[in-house]
């Protein structure tokens, strides 16, 4: 269980529009109340560095100020910033494993209000354009989620709102 506290491990919560990378193996990165927003996380199992951002909106077009100050606010600028920061921290892009969660439709089916669907579409397009695939994902649906990623093992999971059990997105990637 990544959602419960583990002795000797610290949970670092990334808020909406936040972005964080971390190379401390004793850290579990997490983000909560992922509704229409989308979380993209990545980890390099060899360099043992991981990061994630929690985007609110799909595209930063026309919002250069916000994209510069808070790149994690948008899927596109968050994606670039996450890749850049992880590379600077020693990650090798080819080794990065990506996980995604969120993009729920928590309102009616109107296309403009389906920000969750637009966030997911943008994310999938960006991944496809770079030839990346997701190692694990929990996207869409109508439920709010929390996401967890253990830096040490690359283990990722989600927890649905109102549920106690976690859904593993992938098994541990490395031995400790």
């Amino acid at each position, binding site marked *: 269980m990544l959602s419960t506290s583990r002795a000797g491990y610290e949970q670092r919560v990334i808020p909406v529009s936040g972005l964080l990378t971390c190379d401390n193996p004793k850290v579990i990165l997490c983000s909560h109340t992922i509704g229409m927003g989308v979380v993209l996380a990545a980890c390099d199992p060899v360099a043992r560095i991981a990061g994630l951002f929690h985007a*609110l909106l799909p595209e930063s077009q026309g919002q250069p100020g916000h994209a510069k100050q808070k790149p994690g606010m948008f899927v596109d600028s968050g994606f670039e910033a996450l890749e850049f920061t992880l590379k600077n921290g020693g990650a090798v892009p080819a080794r990065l494993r990506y996980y995604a969660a969120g993009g729920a439709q928590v309102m009616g089916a109107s296309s403009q209000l389906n920000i969750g669907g637009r966030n997911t579409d943008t994310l999938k397009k960006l991944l496809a354009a770079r030839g990346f695939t997701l190692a694990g994902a929990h996207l869409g649906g109508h439920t709010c989620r929390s996401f967890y990623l253990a830096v040490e093992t690359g283990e990722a999971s989600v927890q649905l709102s109102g549920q106690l059990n976690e859904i593993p997105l992938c098994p541990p990637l490395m031995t400790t």
Partner: protein
Amino acid sequence: MSAIDDHLSRVKHLPPAPRILPELLQLLRRSDVDADKVVNLIRFDPALTAGVLQLANSAFFGSARPADDLGEAVTRLGFQQVYILVAAVSGARNLSPAQRGYGMACGDLWKHSATSAVAAQIIAKDLGDDVDVVFTAALLHDIGKIILSDTLESTYAVIVRETSSNCYPLLEVERRVLGFDHAEAGGRLLARWNFPANLTAAVAHHHRPEEAGPHARLAAYAHVGNLIAYAMGQGYGNAAYALEPSVTAFHMLGLNEDALPGYMMRTFDEMGIIEALFRVKT
């Protein structure tokens, strides 16, 4: 006696009324606002007095000379800032505790309400409406949840199943379980507290603004503010399928749904300032 009144009479501890809000709103409606009367309303409440002084002396309103007198602090901040602060502090008292029946941790409902209020206020400013009234309506729109939460705690599993698996909006599940919903309960609570009819109606009809009669526009603000707060990830609790957006609310305000992302960003920016000022727990 209606089902809501019956429920209200059975609630052991009704929350204390934020009585100062309607009084302060009425004072500020006058063209010749009397600063002494504003100060007199606030001065007997230590938390509000401390909040106004702290805000007036914060870096945001920075001045070389600290304001140690409530009158000076009110003058420095301006009546509108004072009103927003008073509304925020009064609202926080009622809205901060955990609402377990809704799967909301301590501070969740407050954050959702404050985000809704800020979003609605930004739109009202753009459209030239009364920002204080709009802020208050959006801030208190979910006040009914604080009196239904205890009852719903025993049916938590039903609510989670109905909202998550069957995708029923929370409002419908409440009605099925209780016979009424949190919006109606909130409206009735404000009426008991002698809040004016416009705020009572806006809260009671924030999910269906078109039913709020002459106060439909105010209810539409509460609706859109609520929607933006959800869009920003605030206040889901266990209500996964949270809300049926009202197209009418957008029409009433003359808003295009395309405007939503822009308002989300501006709300995000303003909330950052508010959280820093009030040290709201995130």
